[in-house]
């Protein structure tokens, strides 16, 4: 951030004082110093136990680039029994950017999630991770609107990453084997170029294995770029099945072969 560190700490201190005065000392002061933090807590975490946690890392570019999806990567390491990951952008509240329900049966201590956002302004971006003990573990970072330097902004409006090659919506995907029996799944949903404007919102994406067991469920929010690449780490190397539903009740599916066999 451009604000000097001293100013930041002054703001934090001032906020902490204000919070105590208002009798809301149980809300932890926001390390990102967002003016919307109180509203975020009220909307998503009322009466919940919260902690800012280094084990939840949010990675994203320093700034939004005009006309481009902003890539985001969430990495959770060393947290047991993760039930839900809720991604929030303060500036696009209310609502979540994305909800991710991982395979709660797996003893996964490490989880990753990659996606793209259509952001137009500076915002704190947060990942809140709910563990089985009812605690939300929160990590985040600021994305600045003040992007650029030489060559900003984009001179031509870029094609949406998944701009259609065919007429029917489809799913492109691939899996990579990862250590410890994991696989990394990447996929993107292709909208036909002619239909991009009128394309219905994606309401849910589910990933299941060949035995029909649910491995992951994603519920996109309004600023998610549905045509950007999704990245998930799955605690299995079995073949997977991707099932996408949209707001018109349409369903797109495809299978992704075993990551073990895809290994060159």
């Amino acid at each position, binding site marked *: 951030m*451009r604000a000097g560190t001293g100013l930041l700490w002054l703001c934090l201190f001032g906020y902490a004082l204000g919070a105590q005065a208002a009798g809301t000392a149980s809300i932890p002061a926001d390390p990102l110093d967002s003016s919307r933090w109180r509203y975020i807590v009220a909307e998503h975490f009322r009466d919940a136990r919260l902690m800012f946690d280094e084990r939840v890392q949010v*990675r*994203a*570019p*320093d*700034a939004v*680039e*005009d006309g*481009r*999806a*902003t*890539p*985001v*990567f969430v*990495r959770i390491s060393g947290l047991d029994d993760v039930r839900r990951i809720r991604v929030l952008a303060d500036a696009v509240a209310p609502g979540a950017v994305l909800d991710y329900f991982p395979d709660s049966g797996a003893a996964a201590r490490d989880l*990753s999630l*990659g996606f*793209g956002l259509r952001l137009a302004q500076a915002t704190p971006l947060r990942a809140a991770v709910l563990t089985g003990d009812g605690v939300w573990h929160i990590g985040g970072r600021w994305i600045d*609107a*003040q*992007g*650029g*330097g*030489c*060559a*900003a*902004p*984009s*001179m*031509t409006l870029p094609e949406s*990453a*998944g701009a259609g090659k065919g007429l029917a919506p489809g799913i*492109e*995907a*691939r899996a*990579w084997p990862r250590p410890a029996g994991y696989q*990394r799944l*990447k*996929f*993107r949903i292709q909208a036909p170029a002619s239909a991009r404007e009128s394309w219905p919102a994606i309401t849910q994406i589910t990933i299941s294995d060949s035995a029909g067991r649910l491995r992951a469920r994603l519920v996109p929010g309004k600023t998610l770029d549905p045509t*950007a*690449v999704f*990245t998930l780490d799955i605690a299995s190397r079995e073949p997977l099945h991707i099932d996408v539903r949209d707001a018109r009740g349409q369903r797109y599916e495809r299978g992704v072969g075993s990551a073990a066999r895809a290994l060159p």
Partner: protein
Amino acid sequence: MWARCIVVLCLWLPCAVAPAFADGYYDLAPQRIAPDTYVFLGALEAFDFDNHGAVANSGFIVTEQGVVVIDTGPSRLYGEAMRAAIARVTERPVVRVYITHAHADHFLGNNAFAGVPIAALPATAQTIRSAGEAMARHLYDRVGAAMRGTSVVVPDEIIDRRADPLVDYGDHRLELIATAGHSPADLMILDRRTGVLFAGDVVFHDRAPATPHGDFAGWQRALTTAADSGFRIVVPGHGPVAENDTPLEQTGAYLRWLAERLRAGAARGDSAAELMFEPLPPRWAALAVQPAEYRRSVTYLYPALEGATLK
């Protein structure tokens, strides 16, 4: 030798040679780098409210026929500050402006040069015509009041790439070198008299190359063209002037490293924002505007590589 094409999107006020308020934003001190040859060095930063967008190098050559200006900076006030600084060096008039390429930090001072022919490659003029307003708005958002009075002036002289690339201004024979790679059209200007190469953004020096519109193969060819031009002094688009090949080699090596890092990340299945946070080798981390510029490169260039790995 010149094809003429005049399009002016916004009218400027009648020319004021010595603006009263320019100094408030831009303290431009020309540095003499060779006989008759001066540069204004930009800050090694991204645009912000403190540098007022003055992040690129610009320059001028004082010839017997008048002053030749190379790039006009990010705003009308910058262009006016250039004119005031030039007037402190010489009484000769500015007779031509060359715009190296269509990025906002290099041409938005054009409306301080009313009445002077402004020359650029065809694709540069085309991009300024179609996207100049959007670029100016973007810069207004980034640097604020220093942009006041700025409007987009499209170059009115199109450089004919089939024509004689040599242009004489008195005893300064300038060679106009048309390349592409940093952007769709990158003009370099070699002064055969002094050996000074104004390389535009084909060459960066101690500042991470900006690659949003980059084409790696074309850019490497442009660097080879620059290296083979016989220059003695190179003025990069961003970064300090050098009397050797170092900035060219640095730019080429960085672009090769970047292309390989992106390719390897896509092959491994890295997610874009994951790859952005891979540490940089010390040599590239030490460049100005890192890691922000590397991360911008991933934002712009990675989606196509990543998408190509999916079936």
